[in-house]
């Protein structure tokens, strides 16, 4: 079996474990909302980024990935919720907080952003080897393998946008099915916010470059 296909399947299986963890420790309502919303966000965002040329960001290498949904690899269906769920869980344990109940919420959020930046280091160093991502622009600031430095900022920003959105929708006093639908629909707000977050970094670093 191709190494990359094996990795895609392992990632899907590990995501299943995270869903199990979430359902056991946070309940079915949170789990449905978080992972379905993450799937919508991943597939919608990456299709937008890969297909809208005006954004001038990146597309995914057809040589690396095997399973696709439109212009986005299938693995993106679980990638963002997977990464943010790890960020949330590690941060809650480390700072002794809880995003939903409100205990040390700001610290949980900040630590989650830091975790996402750290995870970006691991993931993007790996991604630059194949390469998994084909960059469409020449970045002003690069890190290992020519990867734009904005990826650290971008990953952190995803936690900053996704987690408060999760909290906001989860706290609504309506039936869970409506909360899930609202959260999935909220990706149309989250995606432009995240693209704006990245644009701020690109604008700031273009002056340096």
């Amino acid at each position, binding site marked *: 079996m191709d190494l990359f296909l094996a990795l895609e399947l392992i990632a899907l299986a*590990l995501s299943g474990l995270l869903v199990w963890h979430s359902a056991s*420790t946070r*309940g079915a309502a949170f789990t449905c909302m978080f992972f379905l919303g993450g799937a919508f966000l991943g597939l919608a965002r990456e299709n937008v980024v890969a297909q809208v040329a005006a954004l001038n960001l990146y597309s995914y290498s057809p040589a690396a990935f095997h399973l696709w949904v439109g212009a986005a690899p299938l693995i993106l269906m679980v990638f963002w919720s997977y990464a943010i769920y790890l960020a949330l869980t*590690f941060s809650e344990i480390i700072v002794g907080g809880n995003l939903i109940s409100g205990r040390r919420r700001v610290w949980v959020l900040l630590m989650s952003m830091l975790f996402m930046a*750290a995870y970006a280091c*691991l993931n993007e160093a790996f991604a630059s*080897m194949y390469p998994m991502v084909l960059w469409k622009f020449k970045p002003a600031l690069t890190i290992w393998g020519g990867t734009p430095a904005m990826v650290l900022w971008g990953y952190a920003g995803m936690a900053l946008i996704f987690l408060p959105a999760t909290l906001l929708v989860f706290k609504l006093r309506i039936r869970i099915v409506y909360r899930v639908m609202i959260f999935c629909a909220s990706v149309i707000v989250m995606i432009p916010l995240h693209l704006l977050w990245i644009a701020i970094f690109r604008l700031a670093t273009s002056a340096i470059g």
Partner: protein
Amino acid sequence: MNSRDKRPNFFIREIPLLVLLVFWVIYAGIEVIRGRFDILTSVIPTGLFIIAYIIVRLVAKEQKGRD
């Protein structure tokens, strides 16, 4: 009884650590094989989180044992 009322077993509780460790080892392993191993970018940042997580878990266990 709600599933959250019961404390999950050790395996379920530590799934996030297991998942991160599996990916951490796979990524670093493949980078070593392909000669692109970069300890600073690949291993240290996430590794610090893993160490912090384990320390917090151990300290909590120690305190629980004392109580």
